[in-house]
């Protein structure tokens, strides 16, 4: 998946927007979001981090959430800070890690726990039931009984089906008075706002598109193999690899993170090539 090739939303009028338009992959650090009215489109891993980061400083945020998503607990949370959140290592810990054996033991414990998570990604395992119920509980409790958001946001499909994100602060941010979650789609963009699929206009100074990336496995450049085979064509609809590392008709070409390369793990791939 080329993270260098991001995807803009397919919205009529996007080019006519006169305010600040940005994609999560091409962040303009010079733009000051303080006291602005902004829109955030998307609720994938990017939006889930952007919404709680910008909510405290913007005047108002309209965020377009087209599909439900699971907010998970933090994985291997027992190795993280309180409630499984991010934390800074203490001076004491850093001193201990100067000992390579202690550092290795710590790394091994984390890695071991991550490598266990594959069980929960298979139906019918106790771990799967546990993840699903745990996440439902986490979301319900963090949404403080806000049934409207819970009904729209908690998926009917399985936990893990979309990329998981712990989403520190995301559900809390959605309930802040300066945030309006919109659970229908953005329909078109005007010079100074977004019109949703109910026809309601939301005036904004800035639009943040957290709309993801080109997810194709072929690269943007043309790769031609035996007998004129072109990789982009061969992998357009159903990218098939050999063991994720090779492709038929492309002798001597090896891939890292090719089709079917992500072992059953949570957001930690590409370690074992």
């Amino acid at each position, binding site marked *: *998946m080329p993270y260098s090739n991001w995807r803009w939303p397919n919205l009529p009028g996007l080019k006519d927007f006169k305010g600040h338009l940005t994609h999560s992959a091409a962040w303009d650090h010079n733009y000051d979001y303080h006291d602005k009215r902004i829109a955030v489109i998307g609720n994938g891993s990017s939006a889930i981090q952007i919404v709680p980061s910008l909510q405290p400083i913007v005047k108002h945020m309209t965020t377009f959430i087209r*599909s439900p998503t699971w907010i998970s607990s933090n994985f291997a949370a027992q190795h993280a800070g309180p409630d499984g959140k991010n934390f800074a290592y203490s001076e004491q810990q850093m001193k201990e890690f100067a000992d390579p054996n202690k550092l290795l033991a710590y790394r091994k414990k984390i890695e071991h726990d*991550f*490598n266990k998570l*594959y069980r929960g*990604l*298979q*139906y*019918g395992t106790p771990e*799967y039931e546990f993840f699903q119920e745990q996440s439902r509980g986490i979301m319900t409790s963090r949404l403080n009984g806000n049934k409207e958001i819970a009904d729209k946001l908690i*998926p*009917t*499909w*399985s*936990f*893990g*089906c*979309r*990329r998981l994100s712990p989403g520190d602060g995301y559900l809390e941010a959605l309930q802040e008075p300066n945030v309006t979650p919109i659970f229908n789609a953005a329909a078109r963009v005007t010079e100074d706002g977004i019109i949703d699929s109910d026809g309601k206009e939301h005036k904004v100074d800035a639009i943040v598109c957290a709309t*993801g*990336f080109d*997810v*194709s*496995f072929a690269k943007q450049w043309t790769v031609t193999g*035996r007998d004129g085979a072109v990789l982009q064509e061969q992998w357009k*609809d*159903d*990218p*098939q*690899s*050999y*063991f*994720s*590392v*090779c*492709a*038929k*008709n*492309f*002798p*001597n070409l*090896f891939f890292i993170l090719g*089709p*079917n*390369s*992500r*072992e*059953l*793990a949570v957001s*930690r791939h590409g*370690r*074992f*090539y």
Partner: protein
Amino acid sequence: MYAVKWVEKMAKEHIHSIDPKQEAVDDFNVYTQEFLKRTVYTSHCRSWYKNNKIDGPVTAMWAGSPMHFKDMMSVQRGEDFDIKYCTPNRFVFFGNGTTSRDATDADLSYYLRKDGFS
């Protein structure tokens, strides 16, 4: 490491090219998709694991755990490839019948050990 191992073998054995056999690719993909049916990725959601589709093959995931992937990647299955050689006889890399050990008169009984033979 997987690719590096192949490249080393290719250099050593005068291999011109390796191309995965169609039947190996087919078997791999059939097995993978069948296995992945028991995973959450086939649930009814749009995701990049399925090429941004709601249904259809799971294009991103390996059919197994991290340990499984690591094990499978550690083996080069030559039988799954069409191999072409740079030389008319695939054993030209046998060379003149001697090894670098012979040529340098290095330890020519290196296989004898205290605890046996290897």
